């Protein structure tokens, strides 16, 4: 295409005796090469993954298998407890404290995963610690606190450990909630910087509370 003329010219000369350096360079038709390159690039672009997938670490408490090893579950202050229940259809339900009387359970509040939903609630309760972590991060960025990069994470963990005002979040999942909700709520914990949270199995009272609040008949929620 681009070089047909040139190619013909050299073809004509083929019959004669070759005189070196007569018309300068011999042109090579690059078009097929460009085509090939295009194909290869497209292929590699489609098959390669550039960003490695990220991971989020969670550590669950060890299961107690033997009866004799059974310890008393750690007691936590009722006033600091925040129960978060993952509901169906990306809903989040929460109540504070604990269920004292199964016949008269505390009312459940319904919210969602938007920034003004569960995050605002958690942020409000965890403001003191969140401020501390933010202040610390700003100090590191502006150079007020000088420390090696790899010890920043440890320092934040220490801040979280020292905290004794933030909520203790108990995460429970209703049976029709999904894995995405689960990761979302764990993500909220790290966004807001909640120091203490645990994943707890839902009990039947809470299941009933969810069903009552959302108006689900227990049979249909399979």
């Amino acid at each position, binding site marked *: *295409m*681009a*070089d*047909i*003329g*040139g190619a013909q010219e050299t073809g004509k000369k083929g019959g004669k005796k070759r005189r070196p350096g007569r018309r300068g360079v011999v*042109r090579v*038709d*690059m078009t097929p*090469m*460009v085509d090939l*390159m*295009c194909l*290869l*690039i497209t292929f*590699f*672009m489609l*098959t*390669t*993954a*550039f*960003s*490695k*997938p*990220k*991971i*989020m*670490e*969670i*550590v*669950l*408490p*060890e*299961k107690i298998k033997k009866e004799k090893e059974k310890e008393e579950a750690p007691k936590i202050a009722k006033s600091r407890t925040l129960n978060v229940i*993952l509901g169906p259809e990306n809903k989040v339900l929460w109540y504070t404290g604990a269920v004292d009387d199964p016949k008269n359970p505390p009312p459940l509040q319904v919210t969602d995963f938007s*920034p003004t939903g569960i*995050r605002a609630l958690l*942020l409000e309760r965890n*403001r003191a610690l*969140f*401020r501390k972590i*933010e202040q610390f991060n700003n100090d590191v960025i502006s150079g007020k606190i000088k420390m090696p990069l790899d010890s920043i994470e440890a320092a934040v963990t220490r801040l979280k450990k020292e905290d004794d005002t933030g909520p203790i979040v108990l995460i429970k*999942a*209703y*049976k*029709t*909630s*999904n*894995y*995405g*909700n*689960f*990761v*979302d709520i*764990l*993500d909220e914990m*790290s*966004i*807001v910087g909640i120091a203490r949270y645990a994943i707890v*199995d839902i009990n039947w009272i809470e299941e009933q509370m969810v069903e009552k609040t959302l108006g689900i008949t227990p049979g249909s929620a399979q």
Partner: protein
Amino acid sequence: MVKIKIKKMPKIKLPTKQPFIDMTPMVDLFSILLIFFLLTGTFRAQEPAPVDTPFSISEKPTPDFNNMTIVFSSDNRVFFNIDNGPDTLLKFRPKILECVGQRFNIEFTPEELRKFEKYNTSIGVPIEKMKEFLNAEDPSLREALQTGIPYDSLNNQLEVWVLCARQINPAVMASLKGDARTEFPTVRRILDILQDKNVNRFNLVTSLRAVKVEDTENK
């Protein structure tokens, strides 16, 4: 009368030769791009089931080795994948398959083990069908055999896979890669199986999402 000779205007001579476009810089550019993509990218392994991982703000990259991945798709199928360890000479993959095979009284030939080693995507084949799977020539037949690893309490093969993986490679870490739409009871069940085998630390594989949180009140 004066004869006026009308002279025709001279034709503009069009060059008979086609314009020559020099492709060399283009080739150069493409070569550079090609080399760039070859070096920066890693091959994306084709997963046997579509999995849309949930999002999180975590920026930790997945470890390169010592990683066992449990993949679960939204139709509650479970797949298992493990790498060969920090050194490919360690050949963890065939050893693990051998170990799992022994528990179910299935012996794999060296060739089958080699095939398993090379097969680098996650596997969701019941162990009884593994031989058939490894010897299948047709990819669509293989696809059909990926029915998921059984993980119910009667036939808990996932447990055996986890156990063998931990025996062969004690440094292995568990990653969970799941579809965001998977129902939570499935996830709970998988976590339970892992915890029964004393795996308490999990890496949840997520996609990165940027979130900015601002403390709105009394700043």
